[in-house]
């Protein structure tokens, strides 16, 4: 047990923080601690979790991406136009188109970073502005409400009324999110390419000496994030039942904060899917709880900021220091 807690210190700390916040919120509001609300949370967090696991892969490979959220907006818009021009389409063609567009936009980032040796934060700030600028210029900020029916109609995969009277349902975004989460987990922990990404982020020079193809690593990492951004973009359009060009603008920083909160290291080599999911959930739970407690939405950002600071401090301070019973571990270093 001790070993498990130690090797997953961040995830454990997040879990504890989530538990504490949940308990506090359940005292403040009577609706928070219901299954119905838990599933609500899952439904609303799906898009952010999809983005987060994509961004995680880039962070593990030692990069960072600011542009993925507006890239997702571009994908939404272009996909909606293409689907309209195709005369409808369906979920399969929709996901294929959105995924392919996302990979393309991610590959542009990787190309700039690898070919011209631009550090990823600078390259993606540039593409962030370019993507968003192009989108606003060509759309003149006009939203699309006239989406195909399959995209806007809610797909409920499971629903039931619980004993406590709350209504639970699992919708399509949750299923897509679960697939993305599992796929990312398998990719980064169970495949050789995923482990090469870790190694590359951890020690680029060491990876290079082993003959790992650095360019390929960049394309795979940013391509994966692009894929997730594309899928997430389409799912967000489905969830919102409209395409608003600036709907996702600013989402990148929320997701980045959640991923870093989940233990991913800016600089590479570190981060887990579980931590990443917990990071997103922690922020959603807080927002949801504050909402139910009737706190002004204007205070949300402030409180979420404070929680990020506290959680990061907790996970950086080694868990042994916080929990006395963990202390007598054989001393190393």
């Amino acid at each position, binding site marked *: 047990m001790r070993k498990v807690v130690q090797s997953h210190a961040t995830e454990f700390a997040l879990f504890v923080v989530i538990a504490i916040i949940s308990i506090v919120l359940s005292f403040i509001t009577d609706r928070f601690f219901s299954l119905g609300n838990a599933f609500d949370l899952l439904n609303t967090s799906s898009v952010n979790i999809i983005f987060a696991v994509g961004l995680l892969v880039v962070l593990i490979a030692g990069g960072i991406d600011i542009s993925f959220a507006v890239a997702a907006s571009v994908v939404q818009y272009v996909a909606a136009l293409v689907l309209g021009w195709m005369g409808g389409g369906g979920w399969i063609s929709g996901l294929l188109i959105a995924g392919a567009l996302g990979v393309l936009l991610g590959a542009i980032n990787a190309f700039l970073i690898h070919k011209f040796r631009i550090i990823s934060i600078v390259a993606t700030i540039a593409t962030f502005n370019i993507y968003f600028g192009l989108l606003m210029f060509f759309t003149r900020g006009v939203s699309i409400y006239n989406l195909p029916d399959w995209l806007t109609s809610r797909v409920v995969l499971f629903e039931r009324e619980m004993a406590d009277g709350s209504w639970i349902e699992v919708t399509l975004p949750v299923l897509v999110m679960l697939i993305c989460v599992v796929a990312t987990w398998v990719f980064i922990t169970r495949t050789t390419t995923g482990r090469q990404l870790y190694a590359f982020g951890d020690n680029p020079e060491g990876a290079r000496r082993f003959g790992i193809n650095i360019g*390929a690593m960049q394309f795979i990492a940013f391509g994966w994030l692009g894929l997730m951004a594309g899928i997430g973009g389409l799912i967000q359009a489905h969830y919102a039942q409209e395409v608003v060009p600036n709907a996702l603008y600013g989402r990148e920083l929320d997701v980045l904060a959640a991923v870093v909160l989940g233990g991913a290291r800016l600089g590479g080599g570190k981060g887990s899917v579980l931590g990443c999911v917990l990071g997103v959930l922690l922020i959603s739970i807080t927002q949801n709880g504050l909402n139910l407690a009737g706190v002004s939405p204007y205070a949300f950002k402030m409180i979420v900021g404070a929680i990020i600071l506290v959680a990061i401090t907790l996970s950086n301070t080694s868990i042994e220091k916080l929990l006395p019973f963990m202390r007598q571990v054989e001393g*190393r270093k």
Partner: protein
Amino acid sequence: MTGRESAKGGQKPLLSLRNINMTFGGVKALKHVSFDVLPGDVHCLAGENGSGKSTLIKIITGVYRPQDGAVIEFDGQTYSHMSPVTAQNSGIQVIWQDLALFPEMTVAENITFQTLLGRWPRFVNYNGMREKAVKALARLGVTLDVDRPLKDYAIAQRQIVAIARALVGEAKLVFMDEPTASLTQSETDRLLDIVRTLSASGVAVVFVSHRLAEVLEISSRLTVLRDGALVGVYSTEGMTQSRITELMTGKTFDQTVRARDVSANPVVLEVEGLCRPGQFVDISFTVRRGETLGITGLLGAGRTELALSLFGMLKPWSGTVKLEGKPVHFASNRDAIAAGIAYLSEDRLSLGLIQPQSIADNLVIASLDKIAASGLLSDGRKRDLVAQWIADLGVKVGKQEDAISTLSGGNQQRIAIAKWLATDPKLLILDAPTVGVDVGARAGIFDIVAKLAQTGLAIILISDEVPEVYFNADRVLHMAKGRVVNQFLPADRSLAEIEAAVYA
């Protein structure tokens, strides 16, 4: 080629290089070098920085391609040049000084990293990796928790992981680049045991080092390079370190005890009963004007922690420090610098100098107030100050604006010393000042130390190499496990006696 030894008993060499030439931009890095390693041989490749050691390794491992006419024979095959892939596939492995490991990944992944390579994704076989890793470690007689991330282990164990990785790669020949540089004595002993095990199982090991004392005892042969040319191949039997130094530098160093009697000088620093539990206890000593006090002891004896406490970077729990008779308490090293204490860090590369910045900027960084005119930095003053120190310490530089990383280790160290001298210190603490400095350049550093002492500066010289303090300090403290266990004057004792006590 004096001292050339024919291959022992007609044994066929595992690796044989002939007629290796290499030129970089008109500079001949290697001139007609030949090099032989026997199967199961433990071999030293010695030479100063720039002597061609690393170029030679890079040719053997296929990173560089030698000029035409080269003959490389390895394990019965003849090549005109190697490629990284052929070198690895035929069993040549290098353990680089920086180890090239992945700290966030597990021990098992690090050891069997080669199984993770390949262009197309495959599923990772963690159980297989674990088994392979345990087996490789067992061959070395070591057990580590292979599921822990590597960062949980200290440098000595990481080195073992790097060796285990070479074994998984079916190594027949392993190069170790400066393997003992960051190890304590007992860790070094363990490493040498492991090398013996390897050698007994038929793997040849080549040490590339300029710290040869430790590896000399287990290696059978020695190849010395100087200025890109082969000096000779020698049997290590009866070889002494000073003889190797002569071969490497082509100069003879007469090492004489420099100690002087300074007991009449006024006391600069007086330390009494200084404690920092877990690191050092009850430390008392004095340093006088013009005195060089040596502090020696094994890695982990508490020397560096003591120095950092004097420099205000660690807080002692109890005890007093008096500077020129007045008690001082430093809240930070800024206070210590202002009071006249300078500390040359043992880690010059990452802490002592800012590598990408210029020589001039590095030199003035601790004394910016001296080159400021009415609040703004004056380029003219900076230039003058830097020029003066460069001349005083005899640093060989091109331009002041060149990056510090373009200088050799010895010259970098001179700049680091100058940086502190520019603050006008009363007490200069030198922590391992010759780490990463060539043997030939070390004497130059100590000449500077002696000159500084003559001007009245009080100096604390910390080193884990006993000869350094023995020959260059006026008085030596021996620290072990956080305590001063002995104090002696170099003139009263022989070097061997003291080395025996310290390395015991």
